[in-house]
């Protein structure tokens, strides 16, 4: 599948933003984070900023963005529509939560309730995003039990590493948060390795034989219907060389998991403000690594239409 930057950035940014929002909501509501004006402002700006930037970027992928409002109508059948509804609905409790925290300086009562609701909305929205991909049967690498948990794990992972950077920036970092960030990053790493392993061993029942209805033997493409690449090949026939994908998998592992873990471990020993610098670098490196991971998620996915072209 063609890795369009708008979609790669969209899923990475909203994943991290919703992860952070959910953690702020839950930890704020349960008293693990004390209300403070600047912390609240920075936290809400970062999470809602990432979410909004991602959603805006996704409209860049549309042929007719001015009609985007229509996408809220088919939630009965469409995961994409459900994602749209959930993402917009989440802005309501998230906005109230931010208002209570930043303007009224409190994290109890209705503000706590709004925080918890925002967390639920964030998790639901990430699930909807995951299901858009997991539900697509023609793409075996996405139509897999690894896709939905992957989206949730990566969202939680990027969220907690961002939260760690945020709190460390305010000198509020804790060893518990560092440990949790490392654990979630390890979980993300393990999940990605397992997903790649699963995809590399996939046995796809759809072949050029079933695609053409010609039973038995081999079916070899002699001639395409057209001489140049068409929409189908540009959008769904994207191919990546094995050696490139091996390199990019390595880069993903270093940037998204390895380096952040080292920086987070260093955070146990470093004094403030170096601890905050390490935490921020961990978050930045992980975000960059997740962009590469998401690029590969598209580039390595093979659509059944490629079978008609002998690819």
């Amino acid at each position, binding site marked *: 599948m063609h890795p369009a930057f708008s979609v790669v950035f969209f899923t990475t940014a909203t994943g991290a933003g919703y992860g952070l929002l959910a953690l702020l909501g839950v930890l704020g509501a349960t008293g693990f984070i004390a209300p403070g004006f600047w912390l609240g402002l920075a936290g809400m700006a970062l999470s809602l900023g990432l979410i909004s930037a991602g959603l805006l970027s996704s409209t860049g992928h549309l*042929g007719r963005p001015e009609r985007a409002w229509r996408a809220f109508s088919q939630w009965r059948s*469409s995961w994409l529509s459900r994602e749209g509804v959930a993402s917009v609905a989440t802005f309501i409790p998230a906005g109230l939560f931010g208002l209570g925290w930043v303007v009224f300086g409190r994290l109890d009562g209705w503000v706590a309730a709004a925080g918890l609701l925002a967390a639920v909305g964030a998790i639901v929205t990430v699930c909807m995003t995951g299901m858009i991909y997991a539900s697509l049967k*023609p793409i075996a690498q996405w139509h897999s039990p690894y896709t939905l948990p992957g989206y949730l794990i990566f969202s939680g992972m990027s969220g907690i590493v961002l939260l760690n950077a945020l709190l460390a920036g305010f000198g509020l970092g804790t060893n518990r948060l560092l440990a949790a960030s490392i654990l979630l990053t390890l979980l993300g790493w393990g999940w990605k390795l397992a997903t790649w392993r699963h995809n590399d061993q996939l046995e796809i029942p759809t072949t050029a034989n079933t695609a053409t209805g010609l*039973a038995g033997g081999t079916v070899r493409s002699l001639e395409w*219907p057209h001489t140049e690449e068409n929409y189908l090949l540009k959008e769904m026939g994207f191919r990546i060389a094995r050696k490139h994908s091996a390199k990019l998998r390595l880069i993903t592992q270093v940037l998204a998991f390895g380096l952040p873990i080292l920086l987070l471990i260093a955070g146990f020993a470093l004094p403030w403000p170096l601890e905050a610098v390490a935490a921020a670098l961990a978050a930045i490196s992980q975000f960059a690594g997740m962009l590469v991971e998401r690029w590969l998620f598209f580039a390595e996915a093979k659509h059944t*239409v490629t079978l*008609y072209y002998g690819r």
Partner: protein
Amino acid sequence: MTCLPSHMDKRLGLVIDLDTCVGCQACVTACKEWNTGGHMAPLTDTDPYGGHVDGVWFNRVHSYEHTTEMGGRTVNFPRSCLHCETPACVTVCPTGASYKRASDGIVLIDESKCIGCKLCSWACPYGAREFDTDVGVMKKCTLCVDRIYNDNLAEGDRVPACVAACPTSARHFGDLGDPASAVSQLVAERGGVDLMPEMGYRPTNKYLPPRAHTQRAASVPAKALEPVKAEGGFLGWVDRMLSN
């Protein structure tokens, strides 16, 4: 509404004979010609005379070499929307632009609602939907809704343009929901198949596999020709001279 109809009065579709298709591309051009002025018009071409010709087509004909233990053969293979019974291209559409009609099972796009998110083209395993970069919306085969119900056409012409154009009658149009229809009987008789049945989209269109190879040579009823004899006279002399 992108939920699928629970009941269809008819299941209109095509039956394509891979035995007789000669890959002449007549259906492709007839489709383009009709539809660039039809329901989903225009079928945009970009850079039509340049080095990167591209454009929207509803029907594309591939050629394959099918090799089995019986030998190899060339199979020409027209590919277009199969008007599936449970098509995810419709259910994934967030706007309601894609829909399947309960009256005849035809899968259509309402261009005025389409936001061009392209998700439906990802959801179609067969590559039947093509994005029009010029208009910013998705396009696909309409089974010539604007021909098959068109009172301005003579009754015999009320078939999809591809069917009307095919010089070898490799394309058949009819109601595949009615077991008594000519197309259903053709499918039963020739063992018509679904493409990618494992996807579970339950295509309406069926493909008739090429007939089995035969070991027998074609029998020719005409008598064998006499050998040419040139013994005497001028021609005989020429023959002898040239044979030396």
